């Protein structure tokens, strides 16, 4: 906004905005601080903020005793695997819908979104029993498939909104120059589509990483990702605040950093281009 504000006004606005932002962020900051506290400091009353002997012991314990590594690896495989799989299926579909306009395109997109309205709890029983009879419960494969299907509508929608902004004229120009369909896709469209594909990939990895209905209900140990790891800290182990915090920090930091970098695309992506 081009309105002129006095430095005094701007200072007040700044202070208010920072106070609100810090209140919202405080639980994360507190968890971060607590993760470096010895357990007796973590539960100290009154609480200690920064004046304590910082220690890595909690991280050491969580990694050594709780097998953090395998949960982390499962989270990576499941979230990246399901998203990549979804992209492979969704890219051609979104592509076709964006560049070959049919009468039904909008209905089709709405229908895809409506499949997201089906509550996961509503189909828990058959999915669980199907997985059980196929021996797929507690496998990364099953979670990859389920999360892929769950996020597929969002992936298609996001890609569609990005692809639609690529000017169609450019295709005709390429065709005039004698490009066939293959080279059209490879050399003209792909370079323009890469930013959209990348942000779709990132946002869906975030969604899959944090998904906590199927990951909690379809795994026990072998394929259990970080959501399950953390859920294991609900009482009574959760009362070890230092370890709970260290585990939490390790579960959220990788994805939070990705999130910070993709926050600009987040709005466009998750609102399907309706808000820019």
């Amino acid at each position, binding site marked *: *906004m081009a*309105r002129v*504000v006095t430095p005094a006004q701007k200072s007040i*606005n700044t202070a208010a*905005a*920072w106070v*609100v*932002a*810090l209140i*919202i*962020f405080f*639980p*994360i900051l*507190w968890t971060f601080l*607590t993760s470096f506290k010895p357990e007796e400091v973590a*539960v100290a009353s*009154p609480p200690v903020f920064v004046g304590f002997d910082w220690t890595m012991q909690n991280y050491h314990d969580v990694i050594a005793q709780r097998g953090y590594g395998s949960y982390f690896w499962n989270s990576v495989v499941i979230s990246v695997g399901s998203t990549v799989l979804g992209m492979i*299926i969704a890219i*051609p*579909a979104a592509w*076709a*819908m964006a*560049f*070959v306009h*049919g009468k039904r395109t909008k209905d*089709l997109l709405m229908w*895809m979104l*409506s499949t997201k309205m*089906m*509550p*996961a*709890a*509503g*189909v*828990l*029983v*058959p999915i*669980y*029993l199907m997985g059980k009879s196929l021996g797929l419960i507690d496998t990364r494969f099953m979670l990859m498939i389920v999360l892929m*299907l769950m996020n597929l509508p969002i992936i298609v929608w996001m890609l569609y909104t990005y692809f639609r902004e690529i000017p169609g004229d450019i295709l005709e120009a390429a065709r005039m120059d004698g490009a066939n*369909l293959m080279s059209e896709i490879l050399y003209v469209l792909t370079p323009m589509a890469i930013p959209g594909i990348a942000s779709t990939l990132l946002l869906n990895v975030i969604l899959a990483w*944090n998904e*906590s*209905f199927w990951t*909690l209900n379809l795994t026990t140990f072998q394929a259990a990702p970080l*959501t399950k790891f*953390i859920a294991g800290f*609900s009482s009574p182990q*959760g009362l070890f605040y230092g370890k709970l*915090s260290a585990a939490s920090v390790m*579960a*959220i930091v990788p994805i*939070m950093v990705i999130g910070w970098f993709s*926050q600009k695309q*987040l*709005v466009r992506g*998750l609102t399907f281009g*309706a*808000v*820019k």
Partner: protein
Amino acid sequence: MATQASRSAARLMISPTVILLFLWMAIPLGTTIYYSLQRYQLLYPDRSGFVGLRNYTRFVLSPGFGGAVANTLILVLGVLIVTVVLGILIALLIDRPIWGQGPVRILVISPFFIMPPVSALIWKNMFFNPSNGLFAEAAKYVGMAPYDFLGQAPLASIIFIVSWEWLPFATLILLTALQSLDGEQLEAAEMDGAPPLSRFWYIMLPHMSRAITVVVLIQTIFLLGVFGEILVTTNGGPGTASTTLPFLIYKEALLDFDAGTAAAGGVVAVILANIVAIFLMKAIGKNLD
């Protein structure tokens, strides 16, 4: 530019997605409906058979059902109201000229990236815990008795936690909408002597209506399925005070091993979600054209 050939190529490219999504809907839904009409105890799989609508009557008449539907609606509505209202206020605050808008945005958006079990456990143990949580410490400091949030007000506490997770999303989207508002329009209104409140009411709010619609739609999709937060904080209790529909179905299926009744519950949940969906799709269809 769409030729016959490119049309059929397009159909070919779209069909894997459509077929997969159709199967993903139809098979589980069909199976759920089938199971819901059967007697099906996971512990006694041999005692099966058609029971008509008995699973439905058992589920709907079970003491927890009405409460679970009410809890689900209260949770969704509560979180929607909190996040949209606070989201608008915070977006208005950040949108004004400030130093460090970038870092402020980063701080505000962060809770959105936190997996539900983590945020639920952090709030449950380190803030809500009546013996040594930070809220209890604060209460002691000012000389009040600590309050057992999850024990005394479980649903409100869960609404609080889930709102904290979704407030960043609402704020960011509303902020983006606000930033696309034409500043000159506001200036003109200001010069004509429109007080701040009517500038907000007649210019900013209408401008944000599309964004608000989107926030409501997308959050509803995710909020109807809130599960992890309940599982690790209250486990649906005390009693059934914070049992929602998804949680009730989970209890029937994986704790009571009654697949038939759980399936009936699933069908009920799908029907309820679709009622909500029809309203929302109508609204969004109108607002997004």
